[in-house]
C-alpha cells in the first residue's frame, strides 16, 4: 500500500512539475535562432578571436544576426557551409597564411647596439631594436608566443612561419610591432624576404639580404613591382622560377623549391641555392654565348649571303629557342641591357654579357656583396 503512495506521490510531483514547465515554456517562450547552434557547430572552435569576436559562439551569433563577416581560420570551406545555413552566397575567401618578410639573421643583418631589457619585440621596439635595419624582424618571438599552432620558429634572430601549420589567424600580424609579417595567399610561392624601406644605399650597408631596390626582378618578371624602396610580389601566378636567381642580394625566395625555414636559416640550403644560382648563371652565360655565336654566325651568314641586311632580333630569338625556357631568359637579357645605368651589383652580369665570348666563372659567387 505504501509503495503505491510513494509511486503516486512521485508521479504526482513529476506530472505537476512537467505540466508546470510545459505551461511555462509556452507562457515564457523566448525565441532564439536555432541557426546560431548550427553555425557554431561547423566553426573550427579554435576560439582564437581572430575574427574580432569573443570566440566561435559569439561569431556565430553575430553572423546569424546579419553581420557580414568571415572566419579567417575556417577559410572558404567553412564560409560555404555557413552560407548554406544562412542561405547566402559565400563571400570569396582566399586561404591565406602569414609570412615574415625578413631573412636578416644575426650573421646577415648588422647590429647597431646591444639590447638590455624585456625580451619581447614590443619592448625592444620601444628603443628601436638592436638591428641597424629598423624594418627587420626583431627576433624576440612575440609572434611565436601568440601563435596558436606553434607554426613560428625563432632562430638566429628571425622568425620563420611554417605555411603548412599556419591557420591564417593573423594574431602574429597584430603582435608584430615592426609590421614585418604579412598575410599572403597560401598558393603564393614566390616571396621577397625583405621589408626595408631604407634607401638602397642605406639598405645595402645594413643587411646582406636586403632588397636594394635594384628593380631587376621587376624588369625580368612582371609579377614583381616596387613599393617604395622594396620589391613585392604582386602577381597572381606563381612567378618565374628564375626570379630568385636574378636578385643580386638573394632576397627572393621560391617556396616551391625551399621551405622558408630552410631558406632563411639553413646554411646548407643557402649554399645549395647559391649553387643553383651559379648553375643558372652558368647556363645563362652559355646560353648567351651560344646566342651570340648564333648571332655572329647569322650575321656572318648574312654578311656572306648579303641578303636582307637587317639582323632581326626575332630571328635571334628563334635561334636561341632550342634551349629550355627561352622566353624567360630573353626577359632577363632585356633587363640586363636596360640595366646599364644602374649601379647595382648586376654590373658584373653586364660585363659578363659584354664579354660573353669569354665568360668568367668567378663572377658568380660575388653577387650581393
Amino acid at each position: 500500500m505504501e509503495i503505491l503512495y510513494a509511486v503516486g506521490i512521485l508521479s504526482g510531483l513529476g506530472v505537476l512539475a512537467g505540466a508546470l514547465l510545459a505551461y511555462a515554456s509556452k507562457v515564457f517562450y523566448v525565441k532564439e535562432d536555432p541557426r546560431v547552434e548550427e553555425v557554431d557547430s561547423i566553426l573550427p572552435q579554435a576560439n582564437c578571436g581572430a575574427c574580432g569576436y569573443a570566440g566561435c559562439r559569439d561569431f556565430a551569433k553575430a553572423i546569424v544576426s546579419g553581420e557580414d563577416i568571415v572566419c579567417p581560420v575556417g577559410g572558404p570551406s567553412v564560409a560555404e557551409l555557413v552560407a548554406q545555413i544562412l542561405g547566402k552566397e559565400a563571400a570569396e575567401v582566399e586561404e591565406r597564411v602569414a609570412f615574415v618578410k625578413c631573412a636578416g639573421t644575426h650573421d646577415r643583418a648588422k647590429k647597431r647596439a646591444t639590447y638590455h631589457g624585456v625580451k619581447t619585440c614590443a619592448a625592444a621596439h620601444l628603443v628601436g631594436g638592436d638591428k641597424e635595419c629598423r624594418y627587420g624582424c626583431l627576433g624576440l618571438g612575440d609572434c611565436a608566443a601568440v601563435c596558436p599552432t606553434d607554426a613560428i620558429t625563432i632562430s638566429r634572430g628571425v622568425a620563420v612561419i611554417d605555411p603548412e601549420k599556419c591557420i591564417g589567424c593573423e594574431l602574429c600580424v597584430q603582435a608584430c610591432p615592426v609590421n614585418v609579417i604579412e598575410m599572403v595567399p597560401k598558393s603564393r610561392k614566390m616571396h621577397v624576404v625583405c621589408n626595408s624601406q631604407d634607401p638602397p644605399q642605406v639598405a645595402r650597408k645594413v643587411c646582406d639580404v636586403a632588397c636594394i631596390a635594384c628593380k631587376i626582378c621587376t624588369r625580368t618578371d612582371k609579377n614583381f613591382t616596387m613599393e617604395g624602396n622594396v620589391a613585392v610580389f604582386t602577381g597572381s601566378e606563381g612567378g618565374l622560377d628564375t626570379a630568385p636567381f636574378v636578385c643580386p642580394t638573394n632576397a627572393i625566395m621560391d617556396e616551391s623549391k625551399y621551405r622558408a625555414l630552410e631558406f632563411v636559416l639553413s646554411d646548407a640550403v643557402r649554399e645549395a641555392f647559391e649553387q643553383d644560382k651559379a648553375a643558372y648563371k652558368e647556363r645563362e652565360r652559355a646560353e648567351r654565348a651560344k646566342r651570340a655565336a648564333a648571332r655572329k654566325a647569322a650575321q656572318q651568314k648574312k654578311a656572306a649571303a648579303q641578303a636582307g641586311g637587317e639582323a632581326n632580333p626575332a630571328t635571334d630569338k628563334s635561334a636561341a629557342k632550342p634551349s629550355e625556357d627561352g622566353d624567360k631568359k630573353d626577359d632577363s637579357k632585356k633587363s640586363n641591357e636596360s640595366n646599364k645605368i644602374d649601379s647595382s651589383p648586376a654590373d658584373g652580369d653586364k660585363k659578363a654579357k659584354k664579354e660573353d665570348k669569354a665568360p668568367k666563372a668567378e663572377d658568380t659567387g660575388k653577387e650581393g656583396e
Partner: protein
Amino acid sequence: MKMGERKFIISSSPHIHDGSLTPRIMWGVSLALLPATLVSFYAFGWDAVRVILVSMVSAVVFEAIALMLRNRRPRQAMDGSAALTGLLLGLTLPPGISNAMIMVGTFVAIIVAKQVFGGLGQNPFNPALTGRVFLLIAFPAPMTTWPLPRDLTSQISSLKSFLGLAVERHADVVTGATPLGAVKEHMLKALPHINMGDLFFGLHTPGSIGEISALAILLGGLGLLVARIINWRIPLTIIATVFAVAFLYYLAVPPKVSGMSPVSAAFYMAVFHVFAGGLMIGAFFMATDYVTSPIFPKGQIIFGIGVGLMTIIIRLWGGYPEGVSFAILLMNALVPLIDRYTMPKPFGWVDRRA
C-alpha cells in the same frame, strides 16, 4: 675613433637604480629574526637549532627542486625568500617536533603554497603560515606539545638528538601549556598567574621556539622599521586592534587577577594578549610579508585591523588558543579585494561621472 663605430647598450629609461635588491631585503628580514633565533637557542638549546636548520635547508632544497622542474636556474633558490620562509616556519614550530614533520611543513610552504602559483611574488597566501597551519591541523598533538624551556633533561636529549645519538628523544621531556593555552583552558575559571616579564623576555614560558620572546621580535621588528623594509601600518594596527578589543572584552568580562582593580586587570590581560603567543612575530614578520599583504596604505590599515580582529576573535571565542596564523591566512585571502578597492586615484583624477 670613427663616428658610430663604438656600439653601446640600449635599454629603456631609467638608466640608474638605487641599488636595492630583492635578495638583500630577504636576507635583511632574516637578519632581523636573529634576536629571536638567539633567544630560542638560549631557551631550547640544540633542538631550536635543529628545527631551524632543518626547516631552512629543506625549504631551500624544495625551492631548488621546484625551480629545476620549471626549467629555471636553481640558483634562484638562494635569493633568500625560501630561506626566510623556512626560518619563519621553523620559528613558529614547537621545539620537540620531528624532522619529518618539519619537512612536510616546508614542503607545503614552498611547493604547495608558493611554487604552484609561480614562485616568488605570486603566492596569494603566506607560505610559512600555510605550512604551519597545515601542520597544526594534520598533526595536532605534536604541534601542541610544548616542552618547558631551559629544562635540563630536554637540553641533554636535544643535544643528543642533534648529534644523532638519542633514539627516544622526547621520552623525558617535561611539557607545559603555553600561556595562551592556559588562559583558554581557564577562561571561565580563575586565571593562572602570568609573569609578564617572562612573557616579554620569553625565557621561561613554553611556546613556539621563535615566539616566546616578545622583546627579541620587537627588536627585529624595529630594525625592519628603521631599515624601511616594512612600515608601521600593519604591525601597529594589528597590535592596537588586539589590545583594544581585548581590553574592552576584559572590561566586560572581568578576569579574576589577584590584587588588581577590574580596569587594571583588563589592561593587564590586554597587554598579555599583545605579548603572548605569535602575535608579535605575526604582526612584524608574517602579516608584513610584501607578497601577501595589501600594497596601498589604506589597504594596509584595513588589513591590519582585520588581522587583529580575527586573531582576538579566535583567541577569545574560537576553538584554538592561538589565532594569529588563521587570522593572517584569512586576511591574505582578502588582499586582492582590499587592493582592488583601496587603489588610489591618479594625480589629478577627474571622476568620469562628474
